[in-house]
C-alpha cells in the first residue's frame, strides 16, 4: 500500500503513524493493512480508574437519597477527582493504544451518543459501553445506550413515567441518535416516549426496569400500532433507511470529509442498512478508493483532542499537573467528558476562533520545546539558541510543566532525512510563502525543524 495512503488512513482512524511503523506496513497490501486495523481492535480493553472507594460506600445501600449527606458529599468529591483521572487516562490511552480503530470510534461515538454525568461510576461505565459497541451492531448499541444509568439520568428517562411522561430521551433518540431532524412528528415522540417508560437504574448503575412506571398499552408509532417496548421502538426506527443514511453521513463527515458526497454516503448506507454492522461499514469505507482521493487527504481540521494526542504520538509528553491537560482541553474548546450539550461539539471550522488558532500555533513549542521556535536564518550563526531557550523556559515554562521524551522521537525518526520530515509531520503541502520562509531558515536539528513544522497552520490539518 502506498505510504501516503497508509499515513492518511492512520491519521483518520488514529492519530498519525510513526515512520518506523510506516516502514513495516508499506510492504503490505491495502487489504492487509486495513485488516490489521480490525484485528488489532478485536479486543475491548475497558478504560478504568480505581473507584473501589465509592463502590465500597455503595455496597449495602439501596439508593443515593438514603445516603447520609456527609457520605454523599464525600462521594461527590471523590467523583470529581476521579473524573479528572479518567479524562487523563483516556487521553493517554488514545496516544498509546494498539486498538486504535476501536479507540477512535469510541471518540466518535462519544460525540454521537453524547452524555455526561457527575458520577464517576456511571460515566465510566457509559464510556466503556461506547468502547464495547464501537465496532459492533448498531441496534444493540442503541439499546445498550438507552439503558445506561448515565443516559437515563442525562435525558431524563428516569423521570419518564406512565403517570408523568418525559419526552426528552425519545426526542433526542430520533433527532440526534438515529434519524436526524425532520424525520418524525411530535406525535411519534409522544407515543415512543410511552414505550421508554420504566427505564431506570440502581445505585450501582445497573439497568432496572420499573414495571409500575411502564405505560402498558397500545402506542401508535410511525404508522404501526402495538404494545411497544423501548426495544420495539428501536426496531421500528432502524427499519427506516434514513437511519442508516443519517449515521453514514455522520461517519463520513468525521472520517472522510466535512462536505458530504451523496454517492459515497448512499453506497455506505446500502452496506450499513443490511445488518447495521458497524465493522462491515467501516471496512467498506476504508477499502473504497474514494477514501484515498486527493480531496480527502489532509483537508480536515483536527479536533483539539486529535491535535493534543497527535503531538503525544510523535513526542511522548506527560503533564506533571493533570489539571493543566484539562485546562488545555478547555481553552481549545473540547474537554473530554464535558460536552457542551447533547448535540455535542460541532467540529470542523467551528473549532477555530481567534483564540484557539493562536493557541494551537503556539502550543507545540510551549508544551514540548520550552516555548521556543527557532528562527535562525540560513548562514547565520545560531550561538544563542540555548540561552534563548533558557530565557523562554524561564518566562513561559511556568505555564505548562511537562516531561517530554525526545529520545523516542529521535529513535523513530532515525531513518528519516531531515528534509523529509514534513512528509511525516504534516498531512498537506506547505503553502508557498511559509515554504519560502522555512527554506530560508537553518535546519538546526530534527527537533527544531519538527517544532517549526508543528507551529504551522498546516499542522492543524489531518
Amino acid at each position, binding site marked *: 500500500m502506498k505510504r501516503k495512503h497508509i499515513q492518511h488512513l492512520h491519521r483518520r482512524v488514529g492519530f498519525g503513524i510513526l515512520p518506523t511503523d510506516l516502514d513495516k506496513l508499506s510492504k503490505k497490501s491495502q487489504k492487509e493493512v486495513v485488516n490489521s486495523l480490525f484485528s488489532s481492535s478485536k479486543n475491548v480493553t475497558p478504560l478504568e480508574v480505581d473507584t473501589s472507594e465509592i463502590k465500597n460506600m455503595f455496597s449495602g445501600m439501596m439508593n443515593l437519597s438514603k445516603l447520609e449527606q456527609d457520605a454523599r458529599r464525600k462521594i461527590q468529591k471523590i467523583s470529581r477527582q476521579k473524573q479528572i483521572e479518567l479524562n487523563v487516562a483516556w487521553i493517554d490511552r488514545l496516544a498509546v493504544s494498539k486498538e486504535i480503530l476501536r479507540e477512535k470510534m469510541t471518540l466518535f461515538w462519544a460525540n454521537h451518543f453524547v452524555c455526561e454525568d457527575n458520577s464517576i461510576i456511571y460515566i465510566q461505565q457509559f464510556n466503556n459501553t461506547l468502547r464495547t459497541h464501537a465496532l459492533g451492531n448498531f441496534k444493540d448499541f442503541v439499546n445498550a445506550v438507552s439503558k445506561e444509568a448515565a443516559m437515563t439520568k442525562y435525558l431524563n428517562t428516569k423521570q419518564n413515567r406512565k403517570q408523568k411522561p418525559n419526552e*426528552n430521551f425519545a426526542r433526542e433518540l430520533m433527532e440526534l441518535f438515529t434519524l436526524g431532524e425532520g424525520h418524525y412528528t411530535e406525535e411519534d415522540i409522544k407515543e415512543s416516549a410511552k414505550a421508554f417508560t420504566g427505564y431506570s437504574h440502581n445505585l450501582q448503575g445497573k439497568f432496572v426496569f420499573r414495571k409500575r412506571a411502564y405505560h402498558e398499552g397500545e402506542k401508535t408509532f410511525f404508522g404501526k400500532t402495538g404494545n411497544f417496548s423501548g426495544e420495539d421502538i428501536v426496531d421500528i426506527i432502524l427499519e427506516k433507511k434514513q437511519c442508516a443514511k443519517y449515521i453514514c453521513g455522520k461517519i463520513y463527515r468525521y472520517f472522510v470529509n466535512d462536505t458530504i458526497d451523496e454517492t459515497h454516503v448512499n453506497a455506505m448506507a446500502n452496506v450499513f442498512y443490511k445488518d447495521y454492522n458497524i465493522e462491515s461499514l467501516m471496512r467498506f469505507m476504508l477499502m473504497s478508493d474514494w477514501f484515498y482521493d486527493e480531496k480527502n487527504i489532509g483537508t480536515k481540521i483536527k479536533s483539539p483532542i486529535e491535535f493534543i494526542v497527535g503531538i503525544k504520538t510523535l513526542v511522548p509528553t506527560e503533564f506533571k499537573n493533570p489539571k493543566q491537560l484539562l485546562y488545555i482541553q*478547555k481553552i481549545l474548546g473540547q474537554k473530554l467528558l464535558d460536552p457542551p450539550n447533547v448535540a455535542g461539539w460541532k467540529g470542523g471550522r467551528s473549532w477555530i476562533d*481567534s*483564540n484557539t*488558532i*493562536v493557541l494551537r500555533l503556539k502550543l507545540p513549542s510551549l508544551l514540548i520545546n520550552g516555548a521556543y*521556535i527557532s528562527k535562525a536564518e540560513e548562514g547565520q550563526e545560531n550561538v544563542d539558541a540555548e540561552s534563548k531557550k533558557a530565557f523562554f523556559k524561564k518566562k513561559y515554562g511556568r505555564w505548562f510543566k511537562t516531561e517530554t521524551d525526545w529520545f523516542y522521537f529521535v529513535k523513530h525518526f532515525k531513518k528519516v532525512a531531515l528534509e523529509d520530515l514534513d512528509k511525516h509531520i504534516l498531512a498537506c503541502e506547505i503553502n508557498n510563502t511559509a515554504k519560502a520562509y522555512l527554506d530560508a531558515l537553518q535546519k538546526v536539528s530534527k527537533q527544531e525543524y519538527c517544532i517549526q513544522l508543528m507551529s504551522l497552520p498546516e499542522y492543524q*490539518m489531518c
Partner: protein
Amino acid sequence: MDRRKFLKQSSLASSLFFVPSFVRAFEEVASSKLGYKRLVIIQLSGGNDGLNTIIPYRNDLYYKERPTLSIAKTDIIKLNDEVGLNPSLQPLKALYDKGYLSIINNVGYPNPVRSHFRSMDIWQTATDSNEFSQSGWLGRYLDNYGKLPYSAIEIDESLSLAMKGEKVNAIATQDPKVFYNLSKDPYFKNIHNHQTDAHLNEHNLGYLYKSMIDAQSSSKYIFETSKTVTSLQEYPNNKFGKQMKTTAQFINSGLDTKVFYTSLGGFDTHVNQLNTQKRLLSQYANAVEAFVQDLKDNNTFKDTLILTFSEFGRRVKQNASAGTDHGTANNVFVIGENLKKQGLYNNMASLNNLDDNGDLKFEIDFRTIYATVLDKWLEVDDKKVLNKSFSQLDFI
C-alpha cells in the same frame, strides 16, 4: 492597463491622500463612533438565589419557607413598601435611585430545566427547552451583523456557547497583552507575510490562515487601542473586578466592539448559602458600581447597556443544609442611563402559586428581553438572530 486608465486610477488614488487626516478621522467618528451602542452581559453562573437578591420582605410566606435563610426585615435595603434588596447590594441602590436600574422579575422559560448545564445552554442559545443548538444568540448576532472579527469579545480565556455563531465566533481574551504576545511571534508573521489570498476562505487550510491573520490584527488592535486609556477608577481586587475593569478599558478606548461578555461564578448555594451569596453579591455590586462610574467619567455610560442574568433561580423553600436547591424563574437586571422603565419593571412572583416542585412559575420569557435588546438597542432584526418572533418589553 492602458495609460489613460492608469492615470485615472492613480489620480483617484492620490486625491485620497490629500484629504487631511483630521477630516478623515472626523468622518470616521461621525459615521461609527457617535451613538455607538454597546451591550455588556454579566452572567452569574451556578443559579443565583433571586429570592434572597430581590426580597419580598412583607411576604410571610418568604419567612415561613426560609426560617434560617431569610434576611431580616431590618437588614433589607428597601426599594418600596413590599420589595427590598439584599444588604450586599447597597451600591445597586444608588443606581436604582438615579434611575439607572430596571429590575425585571420572574424571568424564565416554559418547561424549565433544573440542570445547570442545560439551563445555561438554553439561556445562551435562546432555544426552547426541548431544542438544542450549536450556536449561541450572540454568535448568531455576529453571523448576521458582526462586521469585524472583534465585534464581540468575551473577557475570559475561552468562548461560551453564547458567543459562537454558525459561521463566526467572537474573540475570547482575558488579558489583551497576553493574547497579543502569544500571537506576535515573528514566526507566525513570516509564514504568511500578510499575503491575502482571495480564495483563503474556500478551503479549510485557507480558513486557518485567514483566522490566524485576523487574530494577529485583532490582538494587535485590541491591545494597542485599549492601552491608550488608563483608568483612574478603582475596582475590587478580584477576578470579576478585573474583568469589569478590562471591559471598561475596552469601551473607553473606543474599541469598535458591540458586545462584551463577562461572568461571575459560584452561585450554586446548596449549603450555607448566606455567607457565600453575601460575598458574591457584594463582589458583583461593587464591581458594577466601579464600572458604571468609570464609564460615566468617560462619557460612555449613555451608550452602554448592562444585562445581568443567571441560568435559574432557586427553590422557594430552603433545604436542610441552610441552602437552596435548583429552581426556575429569576430576576434580570438591566442597567443603563436612558431606561424607559426604571426601578421595578413588574411585580414579584407569587409565592403561593408554585409548580409541582415548589418553584416559581415564570411570567416573562427571557427571550423577550433578548428580542428587545436586539431590536431597540443593537437595532437589528431580532427574528433573524432568535429564529423566532418574540413580543417585546419596554424597558428601553
